[in-house]
């Protein structure tokens, strides 16, 4: 199989398997690109994921653009990026009418919808724990995270959330 086709297939698989956002996608990306295809070394993967965490946009897209570029330049980057979002675009274009109906449902279907929302909340709470354990290693880290949390609450509706993140980055250059 030519490289470009392999690239497209791999990232379509990643896009298809990426349920529930970045935290779930990471092991999937790692498995496909490092173990299966051996396009990237483990260290390179770590670097990409670290970059993906702190650069704008979804992690899967960041990883796709980066890997695509590494393997075959700008065309590769374009192809991999398109491939990673293609499955969800296709699925959504079929399902959107039903999804919208489900979203506004009341009665029994509404109960399922409310349950689903609570499930998403449980995933968010889990993400705080799993991402937090990876990122917070000391009391200083913890203090900065709490500061960011309080800062976001205080500045809600007044300041763009990204300002708080950038401010913490700036503080980081002094304390780390």
């Amino acid at each position, binding site marked *: 199989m030519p490289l470009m086709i392999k690239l497209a297939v791999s990232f379509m698989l990643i896009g298809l398997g*990426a*349920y*529930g*956002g*970045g935290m779930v*996608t990471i092991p999937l990306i790692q498995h496909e690109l490092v173990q299966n295809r051996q396009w990237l070394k483990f260290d390179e993967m770590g*670097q990409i994921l670290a*970059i993906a965490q*702190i*650069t*704008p*946009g*979804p*992690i*899967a*897209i*960041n990883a796709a*653009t*980066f890997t695509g*570029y590494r393997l075959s330049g*700008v065309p590769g980057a374009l192809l991999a*990026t398109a491939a990673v979002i293609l499955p*969800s675009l296709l*699925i*959504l274009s079929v399902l959107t009418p039903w999804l*919208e109906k489900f*979203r*506004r*449902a*009341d009665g*029994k279907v509404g*109960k*399922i*919808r409310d*349950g*689903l*929302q609570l*499930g*998403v909340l*449980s*995933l*968010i709470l889990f*993400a*705080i724990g799993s991402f*937090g354990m990876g*990122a917070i290693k000391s009391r200083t*880290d913890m203090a*900065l995270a709490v500061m*960011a*949390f309080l800062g976001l609450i205080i500045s809600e509706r007044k300041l*763009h*959330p990204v300002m*708080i*993140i*950038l*401010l*913490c*980055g700036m503080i*980081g250059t002094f304390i*780390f």
Partner: protein
Amino acid sequence: MIYEKNNSGHLLETVSKVSARSLFWTFFRIGLLTLGGGFAMMSVMRHELVIRKKWMKEKDFISTMALTAVVPGPIAVNLAFLLGKRLKGRSGCAAAVLGTVLPSFCVILLIAMALIRFFDHPKAVAFFKGCTVAIVGQLAFTGLIFSKKLLRGWRQCVICATGLITVGALRLHPICSVILTSVLGYWLLSPVRTSGEEGSDAAYD
């Protein structure tokens, strides 16, 4: 002008003023200003869509977010697709998705081409570490917002805790916990009423 009716006959958002161009730029901002991925992006999306543009109410934001968990793929892209389609049909959908993807594509390309060697600089490492730690705070903030809206009684807390145990302690795939909480919701929650307090906008705003 498009009016959509929900089941109870209430008119939902009026979308006459939203253009494809404005959808593109708003999602471009979201794509550009969301450091971190997945759920960490939610607070920025909420800021842009609910607070700044007022395109959706908090309630709609949370229910649309829940849909993005049913469909595979990046949360931000799924949200862009659904909202673009809702507000402006096919052109809105294309504009919103393109707007979301374009900034991260360009930034990563720039990094891969030229900037990657600067990432090892100690000051850069410290800056990014500060950002990463702050992203934990951002996730907690998102958790707080969702909790405030959704955990309205002990039944809700039990369902959410079950989901958390499924994914956290039992280490099952997130989709399992989402399916389980949906079933529990059907079983435990009281029926959603469209008039009255629960389930109406008044309960959320």
